[in-house]
């Protein structure tokens, strides 16, 4: 629903609301907000047709800072509001802002089902592997053994892998990015916004107050090239500061190729994000440091009809076949009788 007669090019500042941003100084959320605001003008969607919906958590304050329509809902339920809104109003661009606690703990069921249904929305999950707003309890993505206020001798919970969860739920677009890699982040969000269907983006985000250095071990700039692997459609999976290592599958077992030992880039797996079968994407999603490099980028981008479009299509099809409904006729349906 672009207003074709008014092709006014908006700028980033047009998407900045008048509300003061209240995250802790140094929070990774600032970067995600900045990249989101930066992306908005590129979408060529009128501001009034964009809606940001969030749940509860530090991340979920984001809609207040976007000068679009926004709804800061309740804990875990953002996907439900987004589904209702998008189903009722397929013309809108709907964004869900959630976190590891909001989306994967209290709202896990809804996150599962919005992706299963392939509702055409973008979901950005801020994963800082901690509860920040409630001041530092372990989350469903916290590593086992994590010591927090509520796990003084270490968490015994096994962590959940958000992208693997999304792939398991049938999300048609699944990507992972990093708060501090702003270029990668904005590019990934742009790809997500272009995808028809549920786009799930996990953003690995640092909480410098309650979980500082959450991803430091592999995401710090100095070590990142050796400990993370950027996946790109059509390209072989290569990583390393010297681009001297590759990745391939031996059956379903990941293998690291060392080009110094006779292997070459030709031996590496070529990434195909369009596969309908999510198996390889899931293997990539589940790779973890230190055994394997952590994958970032678009793991899957596969299109199929969306929930909101199919709902609308069914209605149009029934109207085509039966004509538009007539209330008077409907009320008078069935075995009626007349009393004189």
């Amino acid at each position, binding site marked *: 629903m672009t207003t074709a007669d008014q092709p006014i090019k908006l700028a980033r500042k047009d998407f900045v609301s008048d509300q003061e941003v209240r995250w802790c100084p140094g929070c990774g959320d600032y970067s995600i907000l900045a990249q989101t605001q930066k992306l908005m003008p590129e979408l060529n969607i009128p501001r009034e*047709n964009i809606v940001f919906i969030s749940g509860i958590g530090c991340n979920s304050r984001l809609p207040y800072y976007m000068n679009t329509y926004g709804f800061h809902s309740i804990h875990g*339920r953002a996907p439900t509001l987004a589904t*209702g*809104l998008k189903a009722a109003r397929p013309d809108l661009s709907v964004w869900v802002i959630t976190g590891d606690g909001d989306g994967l703990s209290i709202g896990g069921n809804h996150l599962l*089902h919005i992706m299963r249904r392939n509702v055409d929305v973008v979901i950005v999950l801020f994963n800082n592997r901690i509860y920040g707003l409630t001041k530092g309890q372990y989350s469903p993505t916290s590593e086992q053994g994590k010591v927090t206020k509520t796990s003084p001798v270490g968490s015994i919970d096994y962590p959940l892998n958000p992208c693997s969860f999304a792939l398991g739920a049938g999300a048609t677009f699944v990507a992972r990015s990093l708060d501090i890699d702003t270029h990668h982040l904005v590019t990934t969000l742009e790809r997500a916004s272009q995808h028809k269907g549920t786009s799930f983006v996990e953003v690995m985000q640092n909480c410098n107050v309650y979980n500082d250095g959450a991803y430091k071990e592999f995401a710090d700039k100095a070590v990142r090239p050796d400990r993370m692997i950027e996946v790109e459609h059509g390209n072989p999976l290569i990583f390393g500061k010297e681009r001297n290592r590759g990745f391939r599958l031996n059956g379903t077992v990941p293998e690291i190729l060392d080009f110094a030992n006779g292997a070459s880039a030709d031996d590496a797996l070529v990434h195909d994000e369009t596969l309908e079968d999510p198996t390889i994407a899931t293997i990539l999603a589940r790779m973890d440091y230190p055994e394997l490099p952590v994958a970032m980028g678009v793991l899957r981008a596969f299109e199929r009809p969306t929930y909101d479009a199919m709902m609308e299509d069914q209605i149009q099809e029934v109207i085509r076949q039966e004509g*538009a409904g007539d209330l008077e006729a409907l009320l008078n349906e069935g*075995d009626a009788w*007349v009393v004189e």
Partner: protein
Amino acid sequence: MAEGSGDVREVARVTIRFAGDSGDGSQLAGQQFTNTAAIFGNDVSTVPDYPAEIRAPAGSLAGVSSFQVSFSSHEIYTAGDNPDVLVAMNPAALKTNLPDLPKGSLIIINADEFTEANFRKAAYEGDPREDGMLAGFRVIQVPITSMNARALKESGLPQRQISRSKNLFALGVMFWLYERSLEPTLNWIDSKFAKNPQVAEANKTTLKAGFYFGETAELFAEHYRVPKANPQPGKYRSITGNEATALGFLAASQLLKKPLFYASYPITPASDILAELAKYKSFGVKTMQTEDELAAIGAAIGASFGGALGLTGTSGPGLALKSEAIGLAVMAELPVVIANVQRSGPSTGMPSKTEQADLLQAMFGRNGESPLAVVAPATPAECFDMAIEAFRIATKFMVPTIFLSDGHLGSGSEPWRIPAIKDLPSMEVHHPTDPETFEPYQRDETTLARPWAVPGMPGLEHRIGGLEKSDITGDVRYDAENHERMTHLRAEKVERIADDIPELKVDGEPSGELLVLGWGSTYGAIISAVYQAQADGLSVSAAHLRYLNPFPKNLGTVLSQFERVLIPEMNLGQLLLLIRARYLVDAEGLNRVTGRPMKTADVAAKIRTLVRRKVSVA
């Protein structure tokens, strides 16, 4: 008994209960009998009673399903306290229903099913027909199963299929007994089994066989005629509360010219509403079967934010799950409607049994001061009007509104005078468009409603949510003075709905010794008992609340005109608590929680304990 089977006796009202295994088709037989009586011109009222289990073991007590229909030559308000006639398709049906039968009632027994094996399944020591427990009843034994099988011997249908038709044989017998035409059911069979003429033919054959059996078998001393009632002229159809509810919400959507979006999770006894609304695609109605109750209310709120009529439906346990999100709708001031078809609780309770024990949950079951509107239909047909009212109030006042139905209303049926579209209330919604004057929480002076600004409107971009709002701007704000003002504004807004709803009407004298005050599905029992008492010259009036929050403005005045107030409810006194608290009236309750509809006799007996004085008759 051999003589006089042609004799016809005229009676004013008959209540029949069809009972059998849940696979025996008692619901269908009852429904067909109801339609036929209604088409003939009787007033009718029904109450189905079925087990929560889909198919409990055949012949067991848990598996008994029944359908009660009352039909009459005068206006009736209930499906009758106790049946005059029981059709018992097996011993279990006899055992579970016998306690409801007054002595002298007619019992028609399917003799073929009264076997040793079935006695054991029904936990009878021996043959109940021979141990004297049926003394005082008029028992007629009909070999329904074998007569049906004989009638369909030539049908070519498999034995299993043949057996499924026996309810129609029994129905045929009842049609003869009450002098009813077979036509409506024959027509129904033709259309229902249009694609399977063999089955249609078999069903028609056995229905007629039952009728002729009644005529020729000379088992019945007489048969009965219930003359036409004299209802208001118009076109009628039989309708259940849940059907009327779905149609009412659709009508609201058409009247407001706003698309309806219904999100719901299946739950007894509200699931029918989703099934009905899912049929209305040609009206642009969007329905969504969600993953759970939380998602259903969330999706309804999302749709409402988008400018659609956001609606969700459920029963008690589901309302509990929706509480937090309803609070969000209170804070966001969005016009969501929540239909609650109440059932017996607490917890899972008795899913297929009725109760009215969610009133306080609807009123107060949320964290914080969380006022909303509550409306409650009194009869199945009235579900249509109150569903429209729910959306009228919700959209006019930008307030979540709970529509409180119950299992008895939802699955009970009665004749509904089909309204003309032009007679439906005219309603409209307004969406702001002017960025210059728009503030998200700037209120209408009369209603205190905030503007319903919808995404897509340039210049009105704004953010709402569950955090406390600043008056006028809607920004997040935590200061004491603002929170107190907003809390009062939300409450005041709901109070002002009272200026926009009809005053409470009193049935009978406007003052006197006793007022019987009710709400919801107890209407039929209350009004029947009050009319009886009035006919007996007692100083009793009735009033029935359709609006529970806020109450009609004149409620306090009405209460003050009576020496005593009786509040019959299918709970332990929830409206009673509200009335006593709000009006400081020493009202008393008549509280029944049997899972069954309120009985006229119970209300009548209570009235007699409270009112001694007769009105002086001129």
